[in-house]
């Protein structure tokens, strides 16, 4: 019966693949893909874009194809770790990737990224200057350009809290909301925001600090309902918990569905991140990739993307084209004074990563 099922659902793809096959036959079938350099002079009109699902404007890829004649083939990853794990063995043919800021630093150190030729991306001028200047993970933005940015904070249900939970204390060191809070399961995001609560920098790598945070979280564990896999917004929306540690963009999304939800960046400051665009080493179509990057930073294109994904955009020219409901949204753009206390996480080396992971394992096993 499996065979029947396969056949009946086969139609559209087999036709398409036949066409694809004919196309390949017409240009001469190439059995080896390793010979990239020979193509560089006259790149085929193709681009392999490795992105998060739907993390692009609804018509952006078609618009780019219309403008440049280059077909974009978008494939998907779901977490930065997966992206890194996959690329560390070698680039299987991606041209543009979308790593988070901490992973940009990892990838630069691992020599996985191609330096960007800024002369070929004139639209860089549309990016707000602070995103070029304040990028400790990629000084001078030699390897990556900002695509969106985001900050971790507390999403909460207004009717279920006594006062605005404006401190990490409610999540990390208090039984006031016992059984009604969820925190992130990612060791780096969880522990390094604890560092902030403890009055230290996100990029403090002292083992004693990890120990202190671990002890505090183990004490807090009975009050925590779940360690969520970055789906905290669902837990909050479904009423499973009333306070959740989550990114502002995710909470902004569910606020359009439920008026009773709000978001705040704790007064101690928090971790901020950027999603960036970069070209991995060994990209088969580097020239197309640069054209694509430049296209993304067109004001209208940036606005089209922002309209779809509703994340804070570093593209100042694009933000200017957005309606006030976006520009004045306090969740998407938290107040400047609290943002000033937020930091980008740096990659602090394998020993730190290992200590964090062990602390996380102990915390979950405790």
């Amino acid at each position: 019966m499996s065979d029947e099922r396969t056949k009946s659902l086969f139609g559209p793809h087999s036709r398409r693949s036949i066409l694809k096959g004919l196309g390949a036959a017409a240009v001469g079938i190439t059995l080896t893909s390793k010979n990239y350099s020979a193509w560089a002079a006259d790149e085929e009109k193709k681009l392999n874009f490795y992105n998060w699902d739907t993390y692009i404007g609804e018509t952006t890829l078609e618009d780019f194809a219309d403008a440049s004649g280059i077909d974009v083939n978008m494939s998907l990853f779901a977490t930065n770790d997966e992206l890194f794990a996959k690329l560390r063995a070698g680039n299987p043919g991606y041209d543009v990737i979308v790593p988070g800021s901490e992973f940009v630093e990892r990838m630069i150190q691992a020599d996985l990224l191609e330096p960007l030729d800024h002369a070929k991306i004139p639209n860089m001028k549309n990016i707000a200057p602070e995103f070029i200047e304040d990028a400790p993970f990629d000084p001078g933005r030699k390897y990556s350009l900002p695509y969106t940015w985001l900050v971790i904070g507390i999403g909460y249900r207004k009717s279920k809290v006594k006062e605005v939970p404006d401190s990490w204390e409610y999540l990390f060191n208090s039984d006031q909301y016992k059984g009604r809070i969820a925190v992130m399961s990612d060791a780096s995001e969880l522990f390094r925001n604890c560092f902030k609560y403890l009055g230290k920098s996100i990029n403090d790598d002292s083992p004693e600090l990890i120990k202190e945070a671990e002890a505090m979280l183990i004490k807090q564990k009975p009050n925590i309902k779940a360690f969520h896999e970055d789906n905290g917004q669902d837990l909050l929306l479904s009423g499973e918990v009333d306070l959740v540690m989550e990114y502002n963009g995710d909470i902004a999304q569910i606020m359009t569905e439920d008026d009773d939800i709000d978001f705040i960046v704790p007064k101690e400051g928090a971790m901020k991140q950027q999603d960036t665009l970069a070209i991995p080493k060994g990209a088969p179509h580097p020239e197309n990739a640069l054209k694509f990057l430049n296209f993304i930073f067109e004001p209208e294109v940036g606005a089209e993307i922002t309209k779809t994904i509703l994340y804070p955009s570093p593209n100042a020219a694009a933000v200017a084209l957005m309606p006030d409901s976006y520009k004045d949204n306090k969740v998407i753009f938290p107040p400047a004074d609290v943002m000033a206390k937020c930091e980008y996480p740096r990659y602090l080396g394998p020993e730190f990563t290992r200590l964090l992971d062990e602390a996380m394992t102990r915390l979950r096993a405790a």
Partner: protein
Amino acid sequence: MATRRAPLEYNRAWQMKLWLLVVFFFLYAPLLALIVFSFNDSKRNIVWRGFTLKYYEKLFNNDDLLIAFANSLTIAFFATLISLVIGALAGILLWRYRFFGKTAVEGAFTLPIVVPEICMGVSMLLFFTRVLPWPNDLIWPFSLGSIIIAHVSFCFPFVALVVRARLASFNTEQEEAARDLGANDWQAFRDVLLPHLKPALIAGALLAFTLSLDDFVITFFTSGPDTVTFPVKVYSMLRFSVRPKSTPHRRC
């Protein structure tokens, strides 16, 4: 003997029927709930906000998703076929023959079940990037080759295991009788052993097909830019559920 039922009629017993009913309820109720809510006019599937078909409209207009689905079915089809052959041979090999190093072979056939998915995924990743690079501009379906190979490697031991369990009830005298009647090895295999194996082959094929269709981790690590499968698509859709506004269908 009014109380005695013929053994064939076990299924008439109400306990049996009730049990089946409960199990099917257990299996289907969550999915039915999900199906009902796929008509819900809400992006997040939590509160009922009215009837809509828009997600289905979006689903069927989503070429990427359909291509991913076709890719998955193709992979599952070939992986099942190859796993069935290799798995059946492996099962027969371990059941019929004694040979040098049999224990090691037996262990090697069990290992793919034991290896954690992620470990297998990473070994396949290293293998297909460093040892046997799989060209990514091959014509479909050859572009799926590396994924199919990886799938066979973790599916066939399941077939082998089921086949071997089935062979335990095989009466070797039947085969010998066939040989005595002049059948050669191949004929004895085809006419006696294979018919006996049929239920195991069905069960094995179902297992392999299910495993292959559902695999995310190993597929993720062996796929290239042109080979998005359904689980890979669904995983990035659901796990990175940031923009339900444009997410075509949270429930597929």
